[in-house]
């Protein structure tokens, strides 16, 4: 229990957020929204880490969150750079246009 709130609820909350993100990655075609959904997934992880860190009274979990944030930032930076390059070429960022490479 953290402040009277069961850790189960935090697990549940972050699992729900994570899955909403995952559904978004699978269901949306707008690539920008794909990135946002991945951010959502990472935030679910962060939330879980902070909750566990609080539960264990251990600061390393919160420190880890910093690293996740840094990585998320760099992924977004690189991803948006690639995306803007694609847009420059195709004038669209629909995933359907990214089907040149066939399975």
């Amino acid at each position: 229990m953290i402040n009277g709130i069961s850790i189960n609820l935090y697990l549940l909350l972050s699992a729900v957020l994570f899955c909403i993100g995952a559904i978004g990655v699978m269901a949306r075609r707008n690539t920008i929204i794909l990135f946002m959904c991945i951010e959502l997934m990472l935030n679910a992880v962060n939330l879980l880490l902070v909750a566990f860190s609080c539960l264990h009274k251990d600061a390393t979990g919160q420190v880890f969150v910093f690293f996740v944030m840094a990585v998320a930032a760099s992924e977004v930076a690189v991803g948006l750079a690639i995306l803007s390059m694609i847009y420059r070429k195709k004038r669209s960022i629909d995933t359907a246009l990214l089907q040149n490479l066939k399975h």
Partner: protein
Amino acid sequence: MIALFIIIGNGLLALLAEIFKFQKFIFNITFVLLLAALASNYWAWQHPQAFAPFSNMICFNMLELVLSSLLIAATILWLFIQRASHNHQTFGTDLSSLILFALAGGLLLTAFQNLTTLFIGVELLSIPLYVLAASHKNSADSHEAGFKYLILGAFASALLLFGIALLYGGAASFDINAIQAYLNAQANLPAFVKMGMLLLLIAFCFKVAIAPFHFWSPDVYEGAPMAITAFMSTVAKTASFYAFFKITMVCFNAPHTFWISMLMAFAVLSLILANTSALGQKHLKRLFAYSGISHSAFLLLIIIAQQKQALSVNALIMYTASYMLSGLGAFAILVKHGDVISDYAGFAKRNPTSAFSFSVCLLSMAGIPITAGFFSKYMVFVLLLSSSVSIWVSVIAIVAALIGIYYYIRLITQLYSKTAEEPQGPIQTDNNWIALLCAIALLVIGFFPQSLGGIFTF
């Protein structure tokens, strides 16, 4: 550990080159510094000392030294492939620094002692590769490859992180030894820790392209610039595998081995899917993507069957070394001659030496004696049969190896086939010495398997 610093420093130096105008020398500097990194690894091998620097964040013991040396050596070979490619890219400073950072990430993946370092290693390896995969300016395919790689990579990272968070919830620490101690102490693991372990393993399956999480790899390999594909399919994949191996060997071992059946199913699925998909390919990059999935499955079998540790470690070293050598040798040919299979008809008439090197690399991938590939496959089979894994997995692996032999040999047959028209012009004397070097190395390892397959003793 000195090697890691040399490589990072080298990457920073490459960035400075643009400012201080010594771009011309950056290739030579990189080459020399990577050799120095190898030398420092050798020195560390000769002077073993047990200490865990940085609060036990990383450690370079014997195993890590060997594995990181393999990665560095493969990168040195790769440098020459990149230089030889007819790509639009010159050996740019940005390219070299990104590759060096990726290599540093690979080294972290061998040396991590903490899930933090593991995670950062994965990202440091991946993020430069997302960029490099998309780095072909005028090719929409390359952008698409980079983008797909990034989305899938980020998705896998999210899974990895969720797994790490759940493990942390159980063990209250990111240190792999602490996690191992926690896991060993529990008779019954909480369900969420099990979930964390599975998510971690699935994330690795994404990274090393194991079916059913392999679908990105043929597309990404095909779209990315040839030399980058060479790096991704050899160094990057191998580095991820080292981490995969280490996490399963150190953390997830007995008594909690419930994950083995899942990985076994993945391995069997990969063997079947990859080899059957490889049969119909018209492009070598896609072919090597699928054959790479099959090799991943064989490496996964090492992880599944790790019983005697020295044997499985030796098998890992042998397999990855021969896989990287044969892959780099093949890509050294591909960067010069393209990846359309039908263009290779009668290749041997025009380039006898290259055809020889290519054939040796393919024979090694197929696992024909007396190449290094044979001994690596053989060690996998011995491991598999001596473990408690069902014999049917071995039979499936044998059948998969046979299908693999079929398409590799078909390729060799293509190289040596007699075309209707006479070869155009005189025999080219292309100095594809990098492929020849790989081929000779494969043969030498095949003659002296003890050199790599017997580094660690029981």
